[in-house]
């Protein structure tokens, strides 16, 4: 009888987590997958109207956003929402009983359940669009490709850590999701989702260079498009590594303090 109860408890928890996961999964797909294509459509309407925009033509926009959709799946994260829900609903207590840090569980769930599947599905899509339109142009320089993969790893790490940090806000705030939303709003601009960063004013470009958001879209995509000099690539990678360190320690700190708060409430 006890075995049966335990079995059901485990299954219910898994089902609940899955259901939670599903909702954010679909939402993430909407924001990271579909939204860039809507942006692209409008840019194409613009190039139709005025021709090239400061060195960006139709083919450039198509390349940027199609690659961008792919990169978004790899570097983007909806960890903050799942973590928030777990904290608010007390589900975190269960995760804490496990012998590994809860972050691993969430990461595995998100990565295996979503990222790998969608990325694998999108790669043929990218080839298809490339073959059909002939518009997708990537760099032929192998150094660029190596730098691209390094940038992807950095983007994935910083993106995940950022999302995790935003998730820990739920230890203190009930509407942490709204706060995450605001940050994501800024992120949409500063990562290059709304427009390629070189199309913004100098001040915004400088801000985008310093902040970590660019690492998740603009930076990797522009490397692969061959639009950055070696100097700019190295600069970006160094900034990326610094952010990785900052965000890692930032997360550790937030998590430790948040957990103290969480357990103090007698969970």
């Amino acid at each position, binding site marked *: 009888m006890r075995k049966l109860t335990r079995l059901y408890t485990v299954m219910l928890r898994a089902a609940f987590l899955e259901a939670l996961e599903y909702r954010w999964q679909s939402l993430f797909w909407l924001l990271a997958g579909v939204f860039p294509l809507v942006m692209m459509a409008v840019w194409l*309407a613009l190039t139709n109207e005025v021709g090239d925009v400061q060195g960006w033509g139709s083919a450039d926009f198509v390349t940027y956003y199609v690659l961008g959709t792919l990169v978004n799946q790899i570097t983007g994260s909806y960890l903050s929402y799942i973590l928030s829900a777990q904290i608010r609903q007390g589900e975190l207590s269960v995760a804490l009983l496990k012998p590994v840090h809860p972050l691993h569980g969430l990461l595995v769930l998100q990565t295996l359940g979503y990222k790998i599947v969608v990325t694998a599905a999108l790669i043929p899509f990218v080839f298809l669009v490339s073959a059909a339109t002939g518009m997708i142009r990537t760099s032929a320089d192998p150094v660029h490709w190596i730098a691209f993969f390094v940038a992807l790893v950095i983007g994935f790490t910083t993106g995940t850590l950022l999302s995790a940090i935003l998730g820990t806000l739920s230890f203190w705030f009930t509407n942490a999701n709204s706060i995450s939303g605001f940050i994501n709003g800024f992120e949409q601009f500063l990562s290059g989702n709304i427009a390629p960063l070189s199309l913004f004013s100098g001040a915004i470009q400088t801000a985008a260079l310093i902040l970590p958001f660019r690492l998740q879209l603009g930076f990797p995509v522009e490397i692969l498009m061959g639009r950055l000099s070696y100097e700019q690539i190295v600069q970006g990678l160094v900034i990326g590594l610094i952010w990785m360190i900052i965000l890692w320690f930032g997360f550790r700190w937030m998590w430790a303090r948040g957990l103290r708060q969480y357990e103090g409430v007698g969970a």
Partner: protein
Amino acid sequence: MNVSTLRSAIRRHLRLLSIFYRSTLQTELEYRANFGFNLMQSFFWLIWAALTVRVYFNFTDTLAGWKFNEVLIVMGLFFFVNGIRQMIIEANLEHLSDYIRLGTLDFVLLKPVSSQFMISLRYIGVHNWSDPLLGIGLVIYALDQLNYAPAIGQIVLALLMLSIGLLALYSVSLLLQTLTIFTSSLDQASVIIQGVLETGRFPVTFYGRLLTGALTVVIPIAIMTTFPAQALLGRLDAGLAAISAIVSIILFIVSAWFWNFALRYYTGASA
């Protein structure tokens, strides 16, 4: 059915709605802090949306025949329609999945009112009030920036387009909601509706000929935001509007039929 029975039926349904919504309002009003925060949140996203449009207009004065402030009108209407979607469609969608999962749909079916009425309008997400309000605010602001005051006739036409647009949105949602009786995976439905509506942020003419056609005739997103805006600006294409309106009404009839069809399947299955 003659006029007096129709009128009493409408009155009965309106009275039910006032009972439903009054209790919801009382509950929501207890959380006063939320109101201010919601307003701030809506305002943030409104400004954010306006900025995303602004980026394009840094490089041109018109885009596919639309000026910046004219696009803001469409954006404002999008906020209005999206807000209504969250208040009515999303709020009820959440409960529908519960009804099906917990089997309480049977109780809804037992009530002496149309089940479609109950699952569509029983609940209202009062806390989403700020989006529709600010959306209309943006429309007024944009019209002011254009130094343009639409004539009464144009406003009426715009309201007509908007109403039919909301009807179309409701019908598409109902179709998806009905599907959950068969598939019981509701979260996708909510996101799909949201995603499709997102194209309504911009005038549909931005999207190229093929997509514009699809968004006018297949899933009439155009009539939700673009056509009302065009009506206000006095440049609505009567032919396209009529086609869109007819498609919307057909969708409404089909969705109502599909709901009843699904119910027969549902009651048959659980018997």
